[in-house]
């Protein structure tokens, strides 16, 4: 061994200044940083757009009253909220640029559309009247008006100028809301339960007819009559309540002077947006947000809340994770630990990876053909033949949707699990074997616990993938409006065959299938925000579980 040639004393230790940066790879560092920055900017931009648009939906806006000159020079008064300002290029030869406002005027029952464009140049005057009211209604969306008087059922009339007017109106609205809940209980729960009984009686009756059992038939008819009577009492009660809903009437006047009437029972809430302080607005904001989270949708989903969709997404994602995790982990264990590593296993592995690239709609088609028609159809023939031709499992439902998505997310779990298994140090496995453990014992007791954090990472990714997927669901069980939740208090409590609502589909439905897309746009953002929050919440839960486990089995690093 010879010493390396001695360095000349005057040799530069540091490269010359100009070259130093490129030698050290400085430009490449900057290049990489730029890539990350670009990605981050896009993500932050998207998220902040969704957050700003999604949250501002619930904030009460100022109402403007405008005097607008129309083409003939006549002044027309409109009241509403500015939703958008945009530039409009004139078609005239000089092509001047005008500003116009997208103006939310509400009162769809009067004007036919809740929105109109207002030319900024045509506005003669604008003001913010303090006493104008924005009311949320059961039908036709919001209304913006000046109250005139409240005519009660007993004939008394309270003018809007009286001090007690607003308090009285709100009390009546609260009464109406309570009554609406009552009607809902009667119609959805009690009458729903009666319908269930009728259906069962009907099935028994059909059987009795085929068996020619006249005694049973008579009994069933008697039972049927009882149920019918019960139904009629309930229906009468509901009808009575319904009539009360239209007993009190609110007289009001629109900004252009038209006088109108409205049953108080159809009002949900009234606010004075121009007279509210910041705190009052904040209260309304919280109230709106809460209603959105917990309420059921109304008016073709463009109004009301999205609770059924949140619940449906949550239950489906959970069910999917519960199905996909054991399946993926078992498959990965066999593939990595037991299968003889060779060409065949390599091909299986490549195929699994490529499965992740199959368009999700294809999984939907497969789910429809295999789960819904084949498996579900067979289940119907074997166990639910008495209600055929009405399908029970032979139609889309939350179970089939979860299974389809589980299949879709399977590659993610398999790949993650395999990598987690590979990362378990060889020494630990050998030590387990050297202690006299069989292969399965060492996998079960040592390898799997060590790999668990990595496996959970895969589950987190699979959950995110599943929760955001829409296309396959449209084929296997998601609906625009589900009459009931997949979990409730009627036996057997879990209704895996029921159709369900899903946030992702809700977004598609609101944005592209809605009769009034402009009115639905804020809801699209709010729903998107919620879907993201739901996925984040579920991921945080899984990640904290993973961190807990990682602390417990601190061996592999993920």
């Amino acid at each position: 061994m010879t010493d390396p040639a001695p360095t000349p004393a005057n040799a530069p230790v540091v490269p010359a200044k100009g070259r130093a940066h490129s030698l050290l790879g400085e430009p490449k560092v900057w290049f990489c940083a730029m890539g990350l920055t670009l990605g981050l900017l896009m993500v932050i931009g998207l998220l902040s757009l969704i957050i700003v648009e999604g949250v501002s939906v619930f904030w009460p806006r100022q109402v403007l009253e405008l005097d607008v000159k129309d083409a003939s020079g006549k002044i027309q008064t409109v009241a509403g909220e500015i939703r958008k300002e945009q530039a409009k290029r004139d078609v005239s030869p000089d092509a001047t640029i005008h500003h116009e406002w997208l103006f939310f005027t509400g009162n769809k029952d009067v004007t036919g559309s809740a929105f109109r464009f207002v030319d900024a140049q045509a506005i003669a005057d604008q003001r913010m009247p303090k006493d104008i009211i924005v009311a949320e209604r059961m039908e036709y969306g919001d209304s913006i008006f000046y109250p005139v008087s409240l005519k009660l059922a007993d004939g008394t009339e309270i003018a809007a100028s009286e001090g007690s007017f607003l308090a009285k109106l709100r009390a009546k609205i609260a009464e109406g809301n309570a009554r609406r809940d009552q009607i809902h209980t009667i119609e959805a729960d009690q009458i729903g339960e009666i319908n269930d009984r009728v259906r069962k009686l009907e099935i028994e009756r059909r059987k009795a007819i085929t068996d020619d059992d006249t005694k049973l038939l008579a009994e069933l008819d008697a039972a049927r009559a009882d149920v019918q009577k019960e139904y009629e009492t309930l229906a009468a009660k509901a009808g009575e309540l319904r009539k009360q809903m239209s007993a009190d009437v609110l007289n009001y006047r629109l900004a252009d002077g038209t006088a109108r009437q409205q049953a108080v029972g159809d009002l949900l809430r009234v606010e004075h947006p121009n007279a509210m302080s910041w705190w009052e607005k904040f209260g309304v904001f919280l109230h709106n947000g809460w209603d959105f989270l917990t309420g059921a949708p109304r008016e073709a989903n463009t109004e009301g809340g999205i609770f059924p969709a949140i619940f449906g997404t949550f239950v489906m994602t959970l069910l999917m994770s519960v199905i996909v995790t054991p399946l993926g982990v078992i498959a990965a264990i066999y593939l990595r630990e037991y299968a003889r590593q060779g060409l065949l296993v390599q091909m299986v592995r490549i195929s699994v990876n490529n499965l992740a690239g199959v368009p999700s709609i294809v999984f939907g088609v497969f789910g429809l053909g295999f789960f819904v028609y084949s498996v579900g159809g067979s289940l119907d023939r074997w166990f639910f033949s008495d209600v055929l031709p009405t399908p029970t499992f032979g139609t889309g439902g939350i179970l089939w949707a979860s299974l389809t998505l589980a299949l879709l997310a399977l590659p993610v779990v398999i790949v993650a699990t395999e990598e987690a298994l590979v990362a378990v140090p060889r020494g630990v496995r050998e030590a387990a074997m050297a202690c006299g453990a069989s292969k399965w014992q060492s996998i079960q007791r040592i390898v799997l616990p060590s790999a668990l954090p990595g496996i959970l990472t895969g589950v987190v990714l699979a959950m995110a993938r599943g929760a955001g997927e829409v296309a396959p669901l449209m084929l296997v069980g998601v609906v625009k409006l589900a009459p009931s939740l997949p979990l409730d208090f009627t036996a057997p409590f879990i209704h895996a065959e029921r159709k369900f609502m899903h946030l992702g589909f809700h977004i598609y439905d609101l944005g592209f299938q809605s009769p009034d897309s402009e009115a639905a746009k804020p809801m699209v953002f709010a729903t998107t925000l919620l879907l993201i929050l739901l996925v984040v919440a579920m991921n945080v839960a899984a990640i904290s579980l993973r961190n807990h486990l990682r602390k417990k089995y601190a061996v592999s690093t993920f």
Partner: protein
Amino acid sequence: MPSALSEPPSSTADGHVAANPRMIEVDHFSFFYGEKKALFDICMDIPEREITALIGPSGCGKSTLLRNLNRLNDLIDGVSHEGDIRLDGTSLYDPAVEVISLRKRVGMVFQKYNPFPKSIYENVVFSLRVAGRNKRSELDEVAERTLRSAALWDEVKDRLHTSAYGLSGGQQQRLCIARAIANRPQILLMDEPCAALDPIATLKIEELMLQLKREFTIVIVTHNMQQARRCSDRTGFMYMGKLVEYAETMEMFQKPKDKQTERYISGKFS
């Protein structure tokens, strides 16, 4: 008599009373990783309740030989062997020998300490648990006895149920030794057990080995010539897959018969 392997180790009195000079017989043993021959016709008898050291430069096959004594090399794909290794007169490769019960008789400690991601207690009783022995009182008794004989009891008795990763390197290696001897094997294989430890922890392990020698037959692979000299009763020098010289340690270090051995132990090549 193939049934001999499943019998429990005879626990006679202390000392070398029942010592068997041919506890392990390596008989013209050659070993292949695929096409590559790693061991060439090794013959050596390892006596009971002594420490036998294997020395030699890296890649000479000493770890391979060690890992064949509990058939851990079987886990690697494409390995094959010629010749035979006998334990108490029974071939390891006898079809009637179950690898798992063999490994229960031959404990092993590895170069890099590798406790399981479990509590200290669970690490020690692991070999009992996989053998299906789950009685709490028995496990408690074994854990204490084993940790005492691994000279670890006083250091960990108050935190038996905390993670094994909280221990220092030397403690973790002693825990691995405890784990290896918990189910009372006859033979303890040690693959450079002190390579990842500092001198003080190394000294502790060496003291421990000298104590364990009374109960177990120890085969140790080491790079540290001083360690082999200090601890072992017999030493084998391996080079390029061959056992060059195998003799009593004192004899080997004082007057080696082979030129290569002499050069190696005097530090002329490595």
